[in-house]
């Protein structure tokens, strides 16, 4: 569930790139901003809390920024001639997408499909509330993940709001601001909005697997699926700059697969902030490899985590024990419109180095550390199980060791699999292949060995009589027990008949001793 959520977010980051291209193409024209505005509607519709003030100020911003009067039609049912079939089907939807449609109409021909995508996505969002009770089989749809996505979005929008408010405030103070700065601010806001949209799309895109699974959904849903897959394609970098191309992709399943198969790495790769929209930091090699990043200003002791440092500081005096000193340093998100920080790898020639032609920045310090160690350092940690795999990041080693050996699913052909179902898929595919049974740790099924061991242990036991090998002939070590016949006086009174075998009457095959041996009672024994 959490993973799904993370994937969504990653996907969101991944598709910033393509949208950015689209935005650049538009030169940040009015309609795009209108489009960018639309997620707010969706959020409002999703019954997330949304102050009227916020809405007001966003609209104010929209108006003031470049005079988007047409956006006021959000709340009005503007006359529209160009309904498409989706709209007819979703007339009952509580929110008004006509405004968006209107703005879509103002777009140049190449932009229109994009708007309709978002339209579709909004419908999907609406659908979510309506279809779920009717289709209980939508197993993949995870409301919790959806909620966390939405609250994440909400947070982002709040941040952006603060930012916009700030811009407005500053504009009011100094009208003489340079156009450059204004453009930069606008760019920044646009970038944020873009990422919000993209996340929304991918959030709605999480409904897609359920569309795929649910057989009961009608063809109209299939169409939405198609829409959504287009959106997914945007996020997958399948379609780069050309928004027109999206019109061509009307295959829902194809889009779905693309969306599902995307991995985390690709998402990370996909981040493509425009140069200048972020600040590039480059740590030195020594700094990266230093075990500690937080140092005590008094004694110089190093810590990996700031929290540990704060705990440590308590020992240096009462002033460090106040709740304020111990509290997590508050992120001043509202005060400064800080540029996004991105990191560069100090290794010259690396793609992650800022001088590289196709430079791709690293997101966090942790990313830098892991990247540097993994790519440019020796692999000093060897797996203690297989003694072959080597790692430079100790966490990687630990992850590997958790799975190394133990969960190896082995086929008779020698191929190993990390998962049982993969192995079974393999053996089902190839005639004559069978799952191999690992010899070590076979546990209860490894009876032979155990029994021999146990038998050997018994051999060492001194019990007054000698056990030669308990497994060889168990009846023999009863005989030497030495019961004296004198104790068995009554026993000898019994007549000794030939032993008769109940089932097969093999009595004549057996010789049963009729007389006691050597004055001692000998066990009448089949084995003799």
């Amino acid at each position, binding site marked *: 569930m959490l993973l799904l959520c993370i994937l969504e977010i990653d996907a969101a980051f991944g598709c910033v790139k393509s949208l950015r291209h689209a935005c650049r193409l538009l030169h940040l024209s009015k309609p795009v901003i209108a489009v960018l505005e639309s997620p707010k509607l969706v959020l409002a519709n999703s019954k997330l809390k949304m102050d009227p003030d916020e809405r007001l100020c966003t609209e104010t911003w929209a108006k003031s920024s470049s005079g988007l009067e047409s956006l006021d039609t959000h709340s009005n049912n503007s006359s529209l001639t160009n309904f498409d079939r989706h709209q007819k089907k979703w007339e009952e939807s509580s929110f008004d997408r006509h405004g968006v449609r209107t703005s879509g109409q103002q777009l140049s021909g190449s932009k229109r499909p994009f708007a309709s995508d978002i339209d579709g996505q909004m419908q999907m969002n609406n659908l979510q509330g309506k279809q779920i009770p009717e289709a209980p089989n939508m197993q993949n749809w995870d409301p919790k993940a959806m909620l966390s996505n939405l609250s994440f979005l909400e947070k982002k929008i709040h941040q952006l709001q603060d930012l916009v408010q700030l811009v407005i405030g500053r504009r009011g103070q100094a009208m003489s601001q340079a156009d450059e700065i204004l453009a930069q601010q606008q760019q920044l806001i646009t970038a944020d909005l873009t990422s919000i949209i993209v996340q929304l799309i991918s959030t709605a895109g999480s409904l897609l697997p359920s569309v795929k699974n649910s057989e009961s959904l009608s063809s109209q849903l299939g169409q939405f699926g198609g829409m959504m897959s287009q959106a997914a394609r945007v996020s997958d970098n399948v379609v780069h700059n050309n928004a027109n191309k999206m019109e061509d992709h009307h295959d829902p399943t194809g889009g779905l697969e693309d969306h599902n198969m995307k991995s985390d790495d690709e998402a990370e790769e996909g981040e493509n902030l425009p140069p200048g929209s972020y600040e590039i930091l480059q740590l030195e090699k020594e700094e990266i490899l230093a075990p500690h990043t937080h140092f005590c200003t008094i004694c110089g002791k190093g810590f990996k985590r700031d929290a540990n440092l704060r705990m440590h500081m308590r020992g240096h005096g009462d002033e460090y024990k106040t709740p304020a000193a111990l509290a997590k340093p508050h992120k001043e998100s509202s005060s400064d419109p800080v540029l996004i920080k991105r990191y560069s790898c100090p290794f010259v020639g690396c793609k992650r180095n800022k001088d590289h032609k196709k430079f791709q920045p690293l997101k966090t310090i942790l990313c830098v550390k892991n990247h540097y160690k993994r790519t440019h350092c020796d692999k000093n940690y060897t797996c203690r199980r297989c003694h072959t795999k080597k790692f430079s990041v100790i966490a990687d080693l630990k992850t590997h060791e958790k799975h190394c050996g133990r969960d190896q699913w082995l086929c008779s052909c020698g191929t190993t699999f990390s998962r049982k*179902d993969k192995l*079974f898929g393999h053996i089902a595919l190839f005639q*004559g292949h069978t799952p191999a049974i690992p010899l070590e740790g*076979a546990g209860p*099924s490894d009876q032979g060995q155990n029994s021999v061991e146990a038998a050997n242990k*018994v051999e060492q036991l001194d019990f007054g009589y000698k056990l030669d090998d308990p497994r060889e002939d168990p*009846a023999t070590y009863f005989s030497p027990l030495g019961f004296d016949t004198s104790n068995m006086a009554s026993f000898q009174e019994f007549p000794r008949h030939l032993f008769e075998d109940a089932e*097969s009457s093999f009595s004549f095959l057996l010789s049963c001793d009729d007389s006691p041996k050597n004055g001692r009672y000998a066990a009448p*024994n*089949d084995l003799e």
Partner: protein
Amino acid sequence: MKMKSPILLLTDDLLLKIISLLTDDTDRKSLRSTCKPFLHLDSLLRTHLRLLHPDFLPSLLPKLPSLSSLDLSVCPRIDAAAVSLLLPSAPRLTRLHLARCSALPPHSLRALATACANLQTLDLSYCTSFGDLEAAAISAAACLRDLNLDKCLNVTDVGLAQVAAGCPELERLSLKWCFDVTDIGIWFLSKKCLHLKRLDISYLKVSNESFRWISGMEKLEALQMVGCGSVDDNGLLHIANGCASLKVLDISRCDRLSMDALCSVIHGHNRLLELHAGYCFPELSMSFVDQLKDLKSLKMLRIDGARVRDSMLKFISNNCKCLTEVGLGKCRVTDTGILHLVTGCVNLKVLDLTCCSDLTDSAILAIARSCRDLLCLKLECCNLLGEGSLNHLGSHCRFLEEIDLTDCSGINDIGLKYLSRCSELVSLKLGLCVNISDKGLSYMASNCSKIRELDLYRCEGIGDGGLASISRGCKKLKGLNLSYCDGVTDEGMAYLSSLEELSSLEMRSLRNITATGLTKLAAGCRRLAELDVKNCKGIDDSGFWALAYYSRNLQQINLSGCAISDVGLCMVMGNLTRLQDAKLLDLARVSADGVEVALRACCACLKKVKLSASLRRLLSPQIIQTLEANGCKIRWD
């Protein structure tokens, strides 16, 4: 000089033809005990052998040229050595019964499976320690068609995959209680074993997904899925839409299923012959009963535990006229309901009315009048039944073979007199019938000479006289329960000693039995394989010595609460080389050392032992290890 009997003048061919007409095992046994030529002829014909001890293998196998089926399940110890004796004649074996042979190591199992090139049927049930290694070993038997892996507790999907890949011809497979088999194993099975006709997955923890795969088995005729608690309607719906050849379905004790799902199964499979749905539903729905009309050829219907209304039984009887077996245990049916049922279903052979305590004599009258072919009638706990019921049964149901009258307190001697007219009776259960006495038993014994199983549990009116008449009349008696029949004394035991066929005797808490009685019994009943003398406080060591000496076929013994001493226990456990199951609780006169020595004496052949929990610390760890290593299961009580 030997007198040559005229029959021996016939040629061997003719004799063989005559002998082959003997179908009953006991007749064959008396034949081969007569003389050597007969033994020789019998051994020429013999195809099946159930061995009591593996040591007979080398001498017997060469003498039985047509042997194709071998049962080693009651042998005390089948290990690598025993298998090596078997290997030379392995190629002609087609059936091999190795139930409870846990001591068999995987490598000899593999050797056996490889050597038995024609093996078609293999039974490894209750080899509780068997797992994937053993499953891999048997996968060497490529022509295997019938495999039983019941309670091979360590078999996982990997082992199942080995079998499925190695034995593609498999037609019947039982995986009952193989708890580690999951959906993926079933999936693989459905992919590889396309000829599967019968599949038992009872008590597995498989989910609905498995049934998706099973529904794809085109040739599957019988599916047993008793107690699959993780399966719900969606799983059953898969079956409803697949398994085109399904004829037998057992969904007993699957408590998450609804009647509607079962209805759709019936809708999809109207050629169903058997439907077992006992203890699934609290109540039958009318829609289900209505759906039953599609099953024109249904022969068996078990709906135990579900409340049934009279009208439903009427509907069933009107539509399913072919029914031969109906299970209505704990359904609380009424006389009217039974009347409705038997008017239509006149071919009933087996009727289970356990705990239908509202039934009266009129219901039995209706049954007896309509169902003349009745073979088996279970009336446990039908308290209102009286001698009238037995009168009707005795006068109409001449073919009755099995009747369960446990806890029917209305049954008395006169009733038994009526019942004795059912001269074909094989199994008679009279437990807790306190109103019967020796007299009633003598009626039964004088007319029903075919009785093999007799249950007289807590029949307090029974004494030595009853046993005397039984021992005279029921010479074929194999199983007898005399527990808590206080009237039985040593004299009764003396009578029983004339029952040569007696193999299972339960005689708990018979206070009047002494060593003398047990000695006589042991000396007479040489076939005794199961003996329960729990709490027979009157028997002392001399009785157990006799047991140790005579009852060498004894496989199971319960000595709990007996006055046996250290030495006696050692004698019993050491001498009885076929003993496989012993219950040794509350032995007041036996010390921990005594138990230790006794266990050492028989540790190689024991497969199951019950000991008091306090001994766990007192016994040496070595003996416990040895027992477990030999495949013996210890239960601490």
